[in-house]
């Protein structure tokens, strides 16, 4: 399984699997929105959490179809299905490697972008924590969508339509954690629910994705 993770990370770097792509997209969204809204820092800091979260969400969707489609096209997925590694583990590892290449870079640069949007330095930690806890769920939910659309040519749009509604709980509670934190209100419950959503996604969805992949590979 470590070999699979290593391979996916190498491929993401070498073949442009979205390592920089998601981050560049996130950066552009976060820079473009203030250009549209105007330079008023008060308004910007109010909408900053929303911008950062929606930006992260869209950047994540951008590279979802690559999770399985490349392995499907070259026959690797079929071979992995007959290998000693359970398909559920393959899905989990691939979701995790997607998070490392897409979600994690967004989490890392989010405090810098938060500064650009007028957030106080003391508030940046909430943006960071909420994205750190929420983005893994985006990858594993996205992997489920990618498994559903794996055999479909140009299934990218369908994939986004399927996945974006499933992102709603993560978005609501993720943004809630950050905005409550920013307003100095206790955000413990939102924090727990966000963590629960991520953990539930990681414990249930790999099984669903593996089942769907088995059907799609028939």
């Amino acid at each position, binding site marked *: 399984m470590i*070999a*699979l993770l290593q*391979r996916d990370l*190498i491929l993401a770097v070498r073949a442009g699997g979205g390592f920089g792509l998601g981050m560049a997209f996130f950066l552009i969204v976060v820079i473009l929105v203030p250009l549209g809204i105007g330079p008023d820092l008060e308004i910007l800091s109010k909408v900053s959490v929303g911008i950062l979260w929606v930006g992260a969400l869209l950047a994540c969707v951008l590279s979802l179809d690559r999770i399985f489609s490349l392995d499907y096209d*070259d026959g690797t997925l079929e071979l992995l*299905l*007959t*290998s*000693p590694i359970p398909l559920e583990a393959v899905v989990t590892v691939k979701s995790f490697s997607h998070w490392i290449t897409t979600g994690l870079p967004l989490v890392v640069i989010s405090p810098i972008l938060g500064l650009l949007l007028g957030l106080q330095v003391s508030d940046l930690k909430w943006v960071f924590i909420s994205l750190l806890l929420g983005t893994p769920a985006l990858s594993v939910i996205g992997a489920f969508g990618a498994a559903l659309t794996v055999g479909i040519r140009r299934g990218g749009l369908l994939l986004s339509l399927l996945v974006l509604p499933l992102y709603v709980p993560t978005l609501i509670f993720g943004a809630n954690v950050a905005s409550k934190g920013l307003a100095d209100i206790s955000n413990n419950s939102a924090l727990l629910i966000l963590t629960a959503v991520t953990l539930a996604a990681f414990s249930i969805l790999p099984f669903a994705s593996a089942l769907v992949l088995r059907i799609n590979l*028939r």
Partner: protein
Amino acid sequence: MLLSVDNLSVSRGGISLFEGLNFTVSTGEIVLINGGNGVGKTSLLRSIAGLQPIDKGKIAINTDNFIFAGDANGIKTALTVLENLRFWSAIFGGKNLHEALEKFQLRQLKNRFAGKLSAGQKRRLSLARLLLTDRPVWLLDEPTVSLDKRSMKQFSRILKNHLEAGGAAVVATHIDLGLTLSSLSINLEDYQMKNGNINASAKAFL
């Protein structure tokens, strides 16, 4: 016995491909599957590998006992030959990496990106995966596609060695692999349903 197929019926896209197929494979045996395009050779192999559901009958095989090589090579073009093999070696827990490189004449190419290989070289790389595991049953779908004469001979030799070492194989192929060992040859066209009868049983009555 490593594999037994009992009264197997398989269809694809709602159309019956073959029915009532029986055969067994034991240590040292090879079954050659032939028949025209679309007769169900690939579907049979995929069914044995558990990649495709069956309509009727039974396939008895230990899932840890076989390795499948389909028509797609399963090669990552952005990885080198060695990296591709190392990946599959790690997946299957095999140790024969250098032997596999040697036997399929890939040593010279080991640091070349798989995307820069010719179709035949890619095929050799794909087949080298077979040597990375001790799994006895090889399920091969048209393994010699794109191979030149020399590579084909070499592959036949490797297959023969595998069988002599106690392995077994089910191979869908159109060409003569030149195996001198006794092998069972099945033409799937004999198992197609025609006018409500299976060809093979019709022949048996005649």
